Each structure stands twice: as C-alpha cells, then as structure tokens.
C-alpha cells in the first residue's frame, strides 16, 4: 500500500476521492435501506420474543394520567405481578389525547390490553373488529359481577369483550362545612335546587362549578343527562342517545327549558375554564355545588375529603323520581391481535377478581369496585354512600358520550349544548341544529 502510494500519488488521490463519494452514496443508500427494514426487523424481534419467552411483558395502554389513577393502576399491576401473572409494561397517555386518537391507536400497533369505557362506546369498536373477545376467560369471572354490570361487558354480538374495574356515580357534590355554615338544606326537587342556588348567590357564592374550557364541554353532559333522565325517564334518554328519538321532540325542548333556569347560577367564565379548575373552585369554597362524577374526590386531600359529600340530582318529574343513577363504568379491553395473548388474557381474568379490585381501590378512593365479592370495609364514607346510591337505583345509565355515538356527541351535541349554555334563549335552534346533523352518525 505505502509503496504504491509513494509511487503515484495523483491517481490514488483521485481514485480515493471517487471511491469516497461512491462509498458515501452506497453507505447512504444502505442506511436508508436499513431504516426501511428496521421496523420489519423490530417487528420480527418483538413477536419472536413474545412467543418464545412465554409470559413476556404484557403492554397496557392506559389513559389514567392523573396521579391518583396512575398510582392505582400501578397497584393493580403490582398485585398481578405478585400473583405470578407476569410483568406488565404500562404506557400512559393523557386522557383527552387517548380518547381523541383511539381510532388510529387501535388500527396501528395498540398495546395488548388498554383502558376504555363500557357501553355503546365499546360495542362500536367490537363491531368494527378492533377488539379481541375474552370468551375463554369469561366463565371464570362472570360470576363476580352484578347482572347490570355483566350486560355492560357484552358486544352487540353477545360475546364478552370488556372487564370492568370500577364505576362511580354522578351526582351533585358539595362541602358539608359550606352547607352547615349557611344553613343550606339538601334540595329534594329541582325547584328546591334553583331556590338553593338563589340563596347561594345572595351569600356571594357561585352556586355551580362550571368549566368547559379546554375541550371540556363533556362536563355539561352530567347536567343534561340527569335533567333528561329525571324529566323524561331512562328509556327516553337511552332512545335519544342512540339516535332513535328526534332531538326536536317537545320532551327534549322541555329539558333545555328546565336547564335554562339553572344556567344563570353557573360560575362565571366557564367557557374559558378547565374542568380541573372548576373542581378546584369547589375545594376552595368559591362555588357551592358541582354536578359531576365522583372523580371530583381526587381534588380533595386529607380533611377536605371528609368534608366532601353529595346528594342525588333532585326530582324533576315525580313519575320518574330518583329511579336512575348515572354511573359510568371504566375497565379494560383486549386489542385485536395482542402480541402476548396468553398473558393478556391472564391479566384480564385477574382484573375481574376481588384482589385486583382491592389493589385498585387501595390507590383510588374516588371510585367503587364493581366486583361484588370484593372487600368494601375499607371504603370511606363517601364511597359507602355512593355504593348505596347505585344499589338503590332501578336503572343505571353510563354517560352521554358512552351511551351514544361519541363522535356525534363530541362534534355535534357538545358544541351545540355549549353554545346553548352561553345563550339559553336559543332552545329551538340548538335542537334543530343537532337533529339536522344526526343522520350522519346513525345511518349505518
């Protein structure tokens, strides 16, 4: 080499340069090729380790990004590990984002198991073939649930898909100390509630927490659902949600008119406030009440939590009384083709048992276990009361965007209701706008 180099440096240099450029090009092409092949290789690697290693890590897609939920799911995962089930790798995503991107998530490379909601919202995915049924483990855990809960786990084809972990009631939450300080009474009827709100306003208290700011318009459904359930009954509500009844029905108009009476008592500036900030206002005693889910309890810490109480949304029409409770149920689903199917099924089976429910409850006091044979002695006063409320109700609805097509709710109903709350005189235009767009979501 060196000899050659000394004798004729010129051609060598030229050749070297040329070779250099070509090798660089080749290298670049090679890198591009490798980059293209990368995912393939990775995919091969993944599936082979999954199959060979048997109980490899089970991936769990979780929307539990709030600290409380995060801790509770971790407790659940730890309990599963201790029971010898295997390792679970959680993949936590912000809640709103998780819901928004669920379609592409499920069609891409979803985790083996992921958190989701019961009801229409789960059945729609089952129908589109994006879920894996759990019939092989269902008989083992089926007996752990009440009939109402069991029916929530089935797809439209009658196969089980869903394993619930908890539910929670929606109600009117308040601070006992605030009510005691001003001598407020629990309202039995909707008229009483309006009167109470009037008193609070006189006492310089914003009567209702209100925050629909950052994509949080869904919080309005708490009130809408209850007003419709109390005014028109459970069956009418479900028919309306599933697109069977017209939104221009005079009965729906009556609901909005009732709603219009309470809107002037909403905390000001709700359209720009996040729901978390609205709940904080209840903690800070700036507002008197909040129509919301029991997850509001996660904003209350220590002694404040003992001060938190609720009453069921009051009676509008005595014919329906308090016969329905809105109790959204959260749980887990299997994606279409889990990489570690055996492990994932094992995890699903574990979730449907009392030890799993107790592990979850150890981290989160704002929900109720749905497994009937789990230990409820560790419940706090709020949980005990909530469990009694659910047990005493004849019907159980989920939530507006779970009992209906979620796209219809998020793109049509929620924006329409948000502008209605902004200008409650627009009853008829609001309903007409909803009805005219409904067919796009329920035709198929």
């Amino acid at each position, binding site marked *: 080499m060196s000899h050659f180099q000394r004798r004729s440096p010129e051609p060598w240099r030229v050749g070297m340069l040329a070779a250099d450029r070509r090798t660089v090009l080749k290298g670049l092409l090679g890198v591009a090729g490798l980059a293209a092949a990368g995912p393939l290789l990775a995919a091969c690697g993944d599936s082979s380790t999954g199959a060979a290693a048997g109980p490899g890590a089970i991936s769990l897609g979780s929307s539990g990004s709030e600290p409380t939920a995060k801790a509770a799911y971790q407790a659940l995962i730890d309990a599963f590990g201790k029971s010898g089930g295997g390792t679970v790798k959680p993949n936590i995503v912000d809640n709103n984002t998780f819901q928004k991107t669920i379609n592409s998530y499920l069609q891409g490379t979803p985790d083996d198991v992921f958190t989701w909601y019961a009801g229409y919202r789960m059945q729609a995915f089952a129908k589109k073939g994006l879920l894996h049924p759990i019939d092989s483990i269902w008989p083992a855990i089926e007996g752990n649930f009440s009939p109402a809960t069991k029916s929530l786990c089935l797809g439209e084809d009658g196969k089980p898909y869903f394993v619930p972990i908890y539910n929670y009631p929606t109600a009117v939450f308040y601070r006992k100390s605030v009510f005691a300080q001003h001598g407020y009474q629990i309202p039995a009827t909707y008229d009483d509630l309006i009167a109470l709100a009037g008193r609070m306003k006189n006492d310089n208290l914003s009567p209702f927490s209100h925050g629909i700011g950052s994509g949080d318009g869904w919080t309005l459904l708490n009130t809408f659902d209850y007003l419709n359930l109390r005014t028109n009954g459970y069956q009418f509500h479900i028919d309306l949600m599933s697109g069977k009844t017209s939104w221009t029905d005079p009965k729906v108009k009556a609901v909005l008119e009732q709603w219009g009476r309470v809107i002037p008592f909403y905390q000001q*500036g*709700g*359209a*720009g*406030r996040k729901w978390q900030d609205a709940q904080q206002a209840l903690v800070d005693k700036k507002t008197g009440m909040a129509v919301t889910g029991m997850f509001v309890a996660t904003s209350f810490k220590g002694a404040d939590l003992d001060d938190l109480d609720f009453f069921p949304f009051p009676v509008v029409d005595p014919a329906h009384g308090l016969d329905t409770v809105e109790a959204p149920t959260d749980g887990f689903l299997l994606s279409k083709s889990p990489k570690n199917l055996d492990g994932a099924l094992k995890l699903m089976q574990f979730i449907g048992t009392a030890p799993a429910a107790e592990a979850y409850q150890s981290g989160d006091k704002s929900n109720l276990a749905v497994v009937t044979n789990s230990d409820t002695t560790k419940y706090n006063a709020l949980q005990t009361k909530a469990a009694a409320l659910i047990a005493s109700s004849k019907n159980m609805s989920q939530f507006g965007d779970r009992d209906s097509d979620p796209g219809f709710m*998020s*793109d049509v109903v929620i*924006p329409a209701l948000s502008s209605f709350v902004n200008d409650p005189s627009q009853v008829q235009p609001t309903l007409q706008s909803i009805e005219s767009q409904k067919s*796009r979501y329920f035709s198929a």
Partner: protein
Amino acid sequence: MSSTKTTTSTKKAAGRPVRRRKMRRLTGRDKLVLGLLVGIPLVIHLALVWFPAIASVFLSFTDWDGIGLDTIHGAGLSQYVQAFTNDPSFWPAVTNNVLWLLFLIAIPTPFGIFLAYQLDKKIRFSRFYQTAIFLPMVISLAVVGFIWQIFYQPDYGLLNSLLGTNNPGGTYLDWLGDPSLNLSAVLVAAGWRHTAYIMILYLAGLKSFDPTLREAAAIDGANERQTFFRITFPSLRPVNVIILVVTVLEGLRAFDLVYVMGGNTGSKQGLELLSILITNNIVGESGKVGYGSALAVILLIVSLVVIIPYLVQNFRKEQR
C-alpha cells in the same frame, strides 16, 4: 435573475458538442446513481404530496369511518352539501379564517416591517432587540399558546389580575371563553408571533439592500418617509412578495394556537377554523374521513386560488 439569463446564454453559445461530451461521460453506474438521486425524492414527493392530495379529493366524495378499506362508500357531493348548508361551524370557520388573514395583513405584517426598518438603522443594542423580538418565533407555537393561555386565564391569569376584571358578579372578562372576545384574544397572540417572523424576513432583505441608493435619495433631498416608500420598499419587491405569501399561508393554515388556547374542541364558539374542523373530523373517535376530506379540499382550493396567481406571475417573469 440576470445571472440565470447569462448562464443559459453561455450554454447556448457553447452549443451541442459540450453536451454530447457530457453525455458520453455518464457511465451506466452514473446513470443509476443519478436515477436514484432523482428517483428517490420523486417517489417521496409523489407519496407524501401528490398521493395524499389526490386521495383527499377522492375521499371527499365518499363516506368512510377510517377503519378498513371496505367501509368506504360513495357519497357523491353530499359531504360538500353538508358543509355548505348544514354544518353550523362551517361558515363561522370560513369567516374566522378570513378575519385571521385580514388581521395578519393589516397589523402584524406592517408592524414587523416597521420594526425591521428601525433595527436596520444600527441603533444601540440592536442585537438585543432583534433577539427579543424574534424570540416568539423560536418558541414552538404550542408553547406560545400555553403562555398566552396563562395570561388569559379568567380567575388567576395575569391579564385579569392586572385589570381587576376577575371578580364574579362584577366585571368578569372571560378572554378565551366569551365568543365575542376569544378570537381577538387569540389574534393578539398570533400577531405577536407573526410580527417576529416578518421582522426577521424583512431585516434580511434590508441587509442586502444597497445603502448607496438610500444615500443618493438623501442627497436628492428625500426625507425618511419618502426614501422608504419610494426607494427602499419598491426595490425590496422580492422580499415583499415572500412576505405576502407567508402571511396568506399563515392565515389559512392557522391551527396550533387555537388548538392549544381554545382547547381541542375545534367547534368552540367564536374560535372555529377550517384546519381544526378538518382535524376533528378525521382524527376524532367516530372518524368522518369523508367529511374531513371535503373540508380539506375546500381549504386546498382556497389556498390554490391565492398561490397560483403568484406562481404564474413569477414563472412568466422568469421566461421573459
């Protein structure tokens, strides 16, 4: 401009022999390499630009939930009919896009030019001012959104705390919630950033501007205003065109700020924008890919209407 002309003319003068010699030098391997070098970008361009564009046009005439190809059904013009006649957010979105565009042209763009002109005068600490004014452009739009969201927060936000307009029952300004206020509030944030962008573009232009022209004007007795409007501004025409195009595009593709500040609802009253409606329909849980595509095609057509005259004009000039 002139340089391109000279190169073409020299090529012509040299004539064919040069070209033929060049052709012979290309070995098979060279051809392969050249083919790859042109072919790969071409394939990427086709796959990432033309395919999605044409697919969007196609999908806009269908109804598709985005899951599996077998669920695509033809829908004719119904998606367009829905947009123009039924969707309550469509016309507000178009109006807001137009307002956005007009605002950017009317205020931040001239202001950016003004700042650039002042900074070009070699005043003291000019580097510092440049950096400070350009900073919003360095931060990602999402972060800009978060910063302003904190400013505007109704209860403890900076603005309401300073103005004392956060007492419920009394004056209470809900900057991002109130449909009559929120667009203006977001536009201020957008303008803040756009000014920075225009400033840097124009400053670059001014740096390349021949100062002797300005001196000549001064000797001829032109005052500063006259110098700017009669000499500087007209001779920076290429930069002006770029600025106009950038402004139009920023107006039409406005998305990030509203997405962050308005909350990702998209159909929030007062803050509807076409780009957000498109995202909501395509990404949302019950995907309305057909409808979202129809909206995207409408936006594409509007953009083309703005951009094509500009391109045509420019190509004509080059041919001349």
